[in-house]
């Protein structure tokens, strides 16, 4: 069973629709910690403000995710869902993330290399330095384009499985064992995005 966590952060329709299109069996959209703790796979979508993740703690979902991940369930965070895997974000100071990965998400700089950097980062950008051992990125080559829309980004660290360049490099994909995240929107990223979701379903 794949638990797709609904924490009222944006629109889940596209993610659910795409997973079902790819033949996912038993997708359940849920807020129930017991369902999440018992799922074989967990997907945390999300667009919008990091503040929205405060609901995860309130609903007991943070502990549920921790429990399921410890039991070896596959986890995929999308967009803010990836950011939540880190310690926190300057978008909502004081609010802690899952802290599975070290580092804090920060806003794009207003200036980069002496010129103005527009923010949000919206559109198709390429994935680079894809780690060959990445299971989530199997069959995706560096240079492949994916769709982004965000103003905050996660730092590059040891679990970074692919980067994207915009005002410097940031974590486009994170992966360590059973815990994975993508900053882009795979459900909106055409063939490359479908490949990533298919890889996740086949785990």
């Amino acid at each position, binding site marked *: 069973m794949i638990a797709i966590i609904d924490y*009222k*952060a*944006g*629109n889940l*329709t*596209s993610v659910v*629709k*795409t997973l079902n*299109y790819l033949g996912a069996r038993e997708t359940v959209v849920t807020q129930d910690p017991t369902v999440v703790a018992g799922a074989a796979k967990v997907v945390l979508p999300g*667009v*919008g*403000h990091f503040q929205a993740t405060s609901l995860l703690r309130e609903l007991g979902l943070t502990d549920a995710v921790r429990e399921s991940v410890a039991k070896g369930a596959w986890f995929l965070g999308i967009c803010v869902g990836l950011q939540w895997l880190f310690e926190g974000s300057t978008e909502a100071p004081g609010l802690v993330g899952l802290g599975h990965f070290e580092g804090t998400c920060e806003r794009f700089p207003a200036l980069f290399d002496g010129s103005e950097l*527009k*923010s*949000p*980062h*919206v*559109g*198709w*950008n*390429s994935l680079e330095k894809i780690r060959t051992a990445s299971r989530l990125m199997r069959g995706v080559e560096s240079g492949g*384009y994916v*769709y982004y*829309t*965000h103003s905050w980004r996660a730092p590059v660290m040891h679990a970074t499985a692919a980067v994207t*360049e*915009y005002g410097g490099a940031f974590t486009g994909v994170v992966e360590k064992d059973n815990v994975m995240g993508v900053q882009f*929107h795979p*459900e*909106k*990223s*055409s*063939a490359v*995005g*479908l490949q990533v979701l298919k890889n996740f379903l086949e785990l």
Partner: protein
Amino acid sequence: MLTKRIIACLDVRGGRVVKGVQFVDIVDAGDPAELAHRHAAAGADEIVLLDITATHEGRGTLLETVKRTAAALFVPFTVGGGIRSAEDAAAVFDAGADKVSINSSAIARPELIGEIGESFGAQAVIVAIDARRVEGRGVEEAEVFVSGGRKATGRRVLDWAREAEDRGAGEILLTSMDTDGMRSGFDCELTAMVSWTVQIPVIASGGAGTAGHFVEVFGRGRADAALAASIFHFGVTDSRELKGELQRAGVSVRLPC
């Protein structure tokens, strides 16, 4: 590197794609779902569906069309036309849209921008601005029109773009009524002015006729994305072909796609 986006736009009336010249002269160009998929397969980076029926009876048809179009579309999908409340927007998102485009309703009640953004995120709200230059005046005096270009608002494009951004719009879709449907090129001066004014992405619209027009609007016009309708529908060219030409001209685009 972040690429420049080519957005295929479908103007829909009564469930069929139509295309006007300067907001009139409607021509039937086909089924929205079929055309959206064809555009995505041909390399369009996004699809925009604008419902120009805007009648009450048309709403059900629109939601059905959106649902059918979104079913197997895996690029960003924007829907506009007749969205007057956060509830209208929610219905369109439920049907499968990723973003909504609001125009007259945002001018009438600017709070709507924030209301939709609060539930669905700023990235899901595009404020569409129909602009017309004032004869004998500079581009900074260009005026905002609503109701499908029929009604002048007395507001300057610059001021409204700035306010839309402050209220939480995720992108600006800027249509020049002076160039729309003419296939003689985008209004680059107007687009550049808005792009310098706001931080959020600006989508240029109105006037696409050749690949050179896109090169101009991405360069001199400082557009982040450009929208084209009529040049694609009748098989004049497709996005992939267009992008090939843009790439040769030094514009960064999503290729292969």
